[in-house]
């Protein structure tokens, strides 16, 4: 609060907010000020109270203590509608748009201008006309009549922001806005945030990606265990400072360096053609003991390649060899039987059955290993699940906890545990730390490295440049369905990777 040079009253003040849930203090005396046209980054590990605080601001929860002031005036936000009325706009991590409708229809959803008197017909011409300026303001050059689902995710997100702005939002809350965006898309979004700031919109920016925060934030506010953990003014926003505030100690080394163990070739993919890029073919090797990274723009075909190798997408052509013997993978079942496992990109959709327990999820792919006389042996299941929970340090009341009740980081560990229980030979991890807090990230990197050291070939697909550079022993960069180049750790720079990802230079 002292740090930022505010000349006028902050537009938003949350003062001494406490929120109690039965038996738990979710927030304790938390304060947050946001100045006019200021970008405040709110950081903290999952469970630090960011979401609860934002839900209070959005009218979803009511605080037990504390008050909210907007432009110096005491307000009470009793519902989501109240929040909208007070000029608070939210853009959530999972977009809440209706992608079957047009862009303009999404922007005016729920408050469509009407004509035709008692017939209550939607004035389609007006919503198209009125949505244009909001789109222009964000530099989004699309026809308002375009069906939303035809737009890339990044543009859909801008439509969400346009919707908030069209409701006269003065305070915009962006919750993990870049988690599904590519590098260039992220840069464009950050530019948009700066434009909005220049237009006097205040932004609360929630992200786990510290690189973005140092680019865009005027001030950083950290929460830890439901309390204010400190603030950083503009000139002190560094990676190390932010991590220290969030976890309360220095995180010495985020990435575990390779041990330099000798790598033995295990896995070969030759001329693999996927349905996503039928005109391109991909060949690469992965060795036991190494972490092979895959970088590239979203849509470059990395996830599709992984899913094809794993057998959940059809392979048009190609040859997969594991430990010298060729494999014929037609279903995920075949890949699993061979010891090739995939931790998919979207853990809630494809990685886990979230309504099931930790035990049931961990044993699902190898359920036959826990049977006696063809019936499931729950005790054996519990033993294995507990073993994984301990090994992964999954924080949960017990193995019978439903996965939906876990934080993102712990859910990801369950997905990993499900495969580690089966002794992987090749482990493909697609976006290992998406939407996961710093502490859990470090643990997952440590786990992946430990696996590699045991002789597993670990393949990591990452859209987070810092992560891709940090974790990979070698980094394959994909561009439009083909591998543009494979870089060794020694020659790894962000510039080289970006050039390959954009297809600017030839393979290195």
């Amino acid at each position, binding site marked *: 609060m002292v740090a930022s040079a505010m000349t006028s009253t902050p537009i938003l003040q949350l003062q001494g907010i406490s929120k109690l*849930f*039965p*038996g*738990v*203090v*979710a927030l304790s005396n938390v304060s947050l000020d946001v100045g006019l046209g200021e970008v405040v980054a709110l950081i903290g*590990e*999952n*469970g630090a*109270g960011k979401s*609860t605080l934002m839900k209070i601001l959005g009218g979803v929860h009511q605080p037990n203590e504390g008050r909210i002031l907007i432009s110096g005036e005491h307000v009470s936000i009793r519902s989501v509608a109240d929040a909208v009325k007070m000029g608070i706009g939210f853009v959530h991590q999972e977009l809440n748009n209706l992608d079957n409708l047009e862009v303009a229809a999404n922007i005016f959803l729920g408050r469509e201008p009407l004509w035709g008197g008692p017939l209550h017909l939607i004035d389609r011409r007006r919503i198209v006309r009125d949505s244009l300026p909001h789109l222009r303001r964000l530099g989004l050059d699309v026809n308002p009549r375009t069906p939303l689902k035809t737009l890339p995710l990044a543009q859909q997100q801008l439509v969400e922001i346009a919707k908030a702005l069209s409701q006269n939002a003065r305070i915009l809350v962006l919750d993990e806005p870049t988690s599904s965006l590519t590098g260039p898309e992220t840069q464009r979004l950050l530019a948009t945030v700066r434009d909005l700031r220049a237009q006097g919109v205040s932004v609360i920016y929630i992200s786990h990606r510290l690189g973005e925060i140092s680019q865009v934030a005027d001030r950083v506010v950290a929460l830890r*265990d*439901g309390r204010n953990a400190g603030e950083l003014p503009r000139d002190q926003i560094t990676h190390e400072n932010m991590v220290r505030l969030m976890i309360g100690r220095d995180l010495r080394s985020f990435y575990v360096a390779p041990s330099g163990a000798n790598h033995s070739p295990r896995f070969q993919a030759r001329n693999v053609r996927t349905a996503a890029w039928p005109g391109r073919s991909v060949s690469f090797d992965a060795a036991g003991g190494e972490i092979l990274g895959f970088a590239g723009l979203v849509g470059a075909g990395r996830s599709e390649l992984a899913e094809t190798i*794993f057998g*959940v997408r059809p392979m048009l052509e190609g040859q997969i060899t594991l430990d010298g013997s060729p494999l014929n993978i037609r*279903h*995920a*079942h075949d*890949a*699993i*039987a061979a010891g090739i496992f*995939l931790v*998919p990109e979207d853990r809630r*959709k*494809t*990685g*886990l*059955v*979230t*309504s*099931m327990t930790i035990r*049931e999820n961990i044993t*699902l*792919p190898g*359920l*036959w290993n826990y*049977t006696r006389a*063809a*019936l*499931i042996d729950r005790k054996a299941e519990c033993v294995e699940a507990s073993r994984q929970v301990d090994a992964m340090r999954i*924080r*949960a*009341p017990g193995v019978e*906890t439903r996965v939906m*009740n*876990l*934080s993102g980081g712990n859910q990801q560990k369950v997905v990993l545990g*499900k495969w580690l229980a089966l002794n992987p030979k090749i482990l493909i991890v697609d976006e290992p730390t998406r939407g996961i807090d710093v502490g859990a990230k470090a643990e997952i990197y440590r786990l992946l490295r430990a696996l590699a050291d045991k002789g597993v070939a670990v393949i990591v697909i990452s859209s987070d440049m810092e992560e891709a550079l940090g974790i990979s022993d070698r980094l394959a960069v994909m561009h439009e369905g083909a591998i543009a180049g494979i870089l060794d750790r020694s020659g790894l720079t962000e510039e080289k990777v970006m050039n390959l990802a954009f297809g600017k230079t030839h393979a290195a």
Partner: protein
Amino acid sequence: MKKELGIGAMFLFLCVVVAWLNPRFLSEANLRNQAHLVGMFGIFSIGLGIIIITGGIDLSVGSAFALQGVLLSMMLVEWKWPWPLAALAAIGCLVFLGVVHGFLITKVRLQPFIVTLCGFMIYRGLARYIANDETKGFGESNFGMLRPMAAGYVFGVPTSFILLIVIAAIMYVVLHRSVYGRYLFAVGRNEEAAKYSGINTGLVIGSAYAVSMLLAGISGIILAFYTNSISPSAHGLAYELYGIAAAVLGGCSLRGGEGSILGIVLGTALIQVLRNLVNLVTIHGHPISSSLELVVIGGVILIGILADELLGRRMAKTRSQPREAVAAVK
């Protein structure tokens, strides 16, 4: 388990009420008849429950009963087939339909509602066409062991009820203790995640339709000998809806991934008592018009599901807080 306790309590409560209003409820003849009906409805309701657990639905069971009944009568009475062959053919015919449903739903990827709605129309129409719209029957003959097995008594207990107990026990193990059962729940709740865990989701889902029709085939024979005459346009009409209602009342969620054998059996029993109530209970000396039967049953199911939903929401509210607790403790 809570759901089963709730529905069990409701069942007992209704039994007491009906017995108090009309002691004839407890008469041997009535109890036998009710047990017989619970057995017949319960067996195919378990099948429907399994389909519902995979997130699907089958609307064709009642029509399949009509088709099966007509064919069974013709095989036994007109063509004089030996009874084991006729019984096997009658069951096999429905299993075949189930396999076709499963194929269309999992391989051609048509929606279960549409596939089985077409079945609902086609099988009823076929039954009427084959029977020339005439009522078929079985007469007095026992057809070897078939009638005693379908409509007889063992120590005074209807065979259909005994069959239900045996089948429920087997299906309990299958659903709640076997790998296949776990897979059913997994594909019902998240088919994609199940596929990514190496489960052959098509086979699991498709086979549920076949298993369901296998159970319906057994129920169908019991039903045929219960009515002893098959009127192709009315035989088994809307029975699938009773089965779906029993499964849902017993805790199966139409979203898939939820349900239990005990719940389905209790749901069936509850619906039977309700039907019995309409027949037995009089108000001011006047019997409840049997035309009100569906109103009573529909109303009670609605109230039961409403109560369950409201309770569920309240529990979900209190449950969501420990979740934040877990996160906060971190």
